[in-house]
């Protein structure tokens, strides 16, 4: 169990090297080794989506990956969304739409929505609703999250003009 392996990866633009046990999950690695505790664990079996991160640009569940699988990967977590102290339009939209209450699922929704909007910058309401259907929120009833994704999509669209 104790044989450790080297993991080299980039998280939010910063390079890290750590020796880790093969069984360490990527989520635990981010949270405990790198102190990036914005990535949350709601179920640890890949259903709730609270631990969603971007792995080489794709939204994935960090609880279902091992840290060693991330060797060489480029990762982005919720901590990487805001730039230079400015909230990302998605973050701002979540606040505007009251798309969070307890905030525990929020990082997962933000990362899921971030990846989705990269691929579908102008979604319909149904597409936005579908896109977040793999994440669970117990507080909001989802409608405000759908609205936030739509608001952010308009925002990114208008900024591009």
């Amino acid at each position, binding site marked *: 169990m104790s044989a450790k392996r080297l993991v080299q990866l980039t998280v939010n633009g910063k390079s890290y090297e750590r020796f880790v046990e093969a069984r360490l999950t990527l989520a635990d690695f981010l949270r405990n080794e790198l102190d990036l*505790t914005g990535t*949350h664990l709601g179920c640890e079996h890949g259903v709730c989506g609270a631990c969603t991160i971007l792995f080489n640009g794709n939204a994935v569940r960090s609880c279902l990956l091992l840290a060693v699988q991330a060797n060489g990967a480029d990762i982005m977590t919720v901590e990487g*969304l805001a730039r230079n102290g400015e909230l990302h339009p998605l973050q701002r939209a979540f*606040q505007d739409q009251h798309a969070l*209450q*307890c905030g525990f699922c929020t990082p997962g929704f933000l990362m899921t929505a971030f990846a989705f909007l990269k691929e579908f910058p102008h979604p319909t309401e149904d597409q936005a609703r579908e896109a977040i*259907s793999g994440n669970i929120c117990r507080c909001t*009833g989802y409608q405000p999250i759908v609205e936030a994704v739509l608001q952010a999509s308009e925002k990114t669209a208008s900024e591009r003009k």
Partner: protein
Amino acid sequence: MAQTYIGTPIKRREDVRFVTGRGTYADDVKLPGMLHAAILRSPYAHARIRSIDTAAAAASPGVAWVFTLRDIGEAAMPVPMRMYKIAGLERYLQPLLAQNKVRYVGEPVAVAVAESRYLAEDALDAIEVEYEELPAVIDVAAALRDDVLVHEEAGTNLAAVHEIHIGDAATAFAGADYTRREVFRVHRHTGNPMETRGLVAHFDAGKRELTVYGMTKLLHYNRQVIAGFLRLPEHKLHFIENDVGGGFGIRGELYPEDFLIPFASFRLGAPVKWIEDRREHLMAANHSREITCELEIAARRDGTLLALRAKIYGNMGAYVRTHGGLVPCSTAALLTGPYRIRNYECRIHCVVTNKTGMGTYRAPGRYESCFFRERMLDMVAADLTIDPVELRRRNLIQPEEIPYEIGVTRPGGSPTVLDSANFPSALNRALKEFDYEGLKSRQGRLENGRYHGIGLAYFVKNTGGLEPYEGARIVIGEGPSVAVYISINVLGQGHETAMAQICADALGVPLEWISVFHGNTDLVPFGWGTFASRGTVMCGNAVHLAALKLKEKLLRLAGEQLNCDPAQLELQGGAVYRKGSAAALLDMEELVVRAREAVRQSVGRPELEETAYFNCSQLTHSYGVHLAHVAVEVETGTVEILRYMVVEDVGRCINPLLVHGQAVGAAAQGIGGTLLEELVYDENGQLLTTTFRDYVLPASTDVPRIESVVLEEAPSPLNPLGVKGAGEGGIVGTGAVLANALSHALSGMGLQVTALPLSPENVRKLIRNRAARAMF
């Protein structure tokens, strides 16, 4: 002009830390030298423990300690009941770790503490427990036969009985034109906050002080109990919640782990963290809702309701937990709802079984009773050929009858009084907003292969009160800055914003000056907590009172500075004005500096603080109507919600954004609980739903766009702000309204829903059984 932060949809100030990943939840707390605990749980529903061998586990790599109940020694106490302590229940309390027997799957048996959670879980694998499996009893009917005793020493599984007698139901039934009897059932499900339970306990052996992070809901009470357990002075315990990933009734109650983790830290002198995993949560944290109700109703031919008679059976699980008999008793407490029913009789049975213990889940008992009553009323309406709305209208308590005393409906309680309401007005508004009349023609109609149904359910929900007080302390610093310290905690509701709004208006300062601090037993010495929709009612009013007291003081200080009568002055926007004048005489910054200086000569202490407690034991009642339009596919049993609306009177709305958020979020939870979720056991007492693949929570594609209408027609007369709690109205009517809408959709087949959940499987079963019956 008076400030009006109250009533304004102000965006939440807490959001920025959450959207940037900077919240601090229990698992985010890291302390130097911290150890990690994992808990060995029973794999059996009912078994005798022959032996526990922890030697190999204790010798596992990185293990600091493995302990069982014996190691706790004399200090070992059961988890106490906090409320609804009906006589008899005290025989069924849960020990901190299993002793000679395990009584449900998931019961804690031993604890391993190690350098990491991975190593602690490895150690659990090395603990040898020899069990002798016993037959399990999982449903109430079987448990009542007492063939299998969950607690042999008690001699029965019927833990307690409580009766309610209001009026004379027997005579009313004897003389009634019409009676009906039905057996209703609400299934076992629970809140499932996204953050599982978690604690970090740190006993500082030098100071002999214990700090616990991750405690929530009832910080002060929990501290008092744990202080007694560890035999430490209460004030040497500091309970801190930080951020909390949802509560919904489950989190923050005392569980065995709340004793075990502080105990481990106390013994080891090192910080100990325990984070529950989801499987543990589903089997160990409180379950709720499982109530069976045999309900009889008596009415006149014209629909006038005469009497209700009920037998309520609560499946309490293996141990009676902190809530005592609350869930079945609360089912009985408001069973008569907003209706004039003078004769009411109820017998409540608390029955133990080999399932997880029962506790509260958002609107505990009220979700259940709303389903029982509102379902029954639709059946009565059909029997008497009266429109369901008209039947309700004829029986609603009228505004001139308010305050309306129902009678004593709670054990040991004072009478239940509906304090303020305009029930007919809320009904009319709901019907209009939903265009109920317009939709009625589609009732039961087959359109494109689906049957349509429109349902409604009226609810009343007690809010506030329960525990008699909450407190707030407000301190003004230079800057100027205003610190509001509150006695309650926050599980996601947004108190940091709402309490600031209340303070700003009462004190007369800009919102931006205010910071709200919560969730720490050291901030305000006494308090209860956030539950039962009481946060804003109890603590919001404490903030209001403290702010008014402080304003009076500030105006006196200003009067001294300005050499004028304080009665002539007012405070608005952070400046002192002469009443009726638009020119500021003194701004707060100046006043604070001068006041701090001046007191040296006068009273000798800075006076820029006030504490107030708001006291009210009486419950204030929110009420309203849920409406739903559903379409049902007979072949698959799937129910699609085409439209859903919650109309709720909250007395006075502090922040519409938050109130709508509560209503919509609660309704979504209730829709999930009604259509999808169920904690399922097999006949051996094995819990089959231990992942989110088996226990299905609603996702964005399962929840419709929920419309929320917030009314302020009946401010509470029981508190200065006039507020009622808004946390539960959105969930209370969900089971009832969906069951009513579905029954209307399938009325052509003569189907009546009497049991939840309305899963496709159950709906199919209902249709099949009906078809089978029709054949014979």
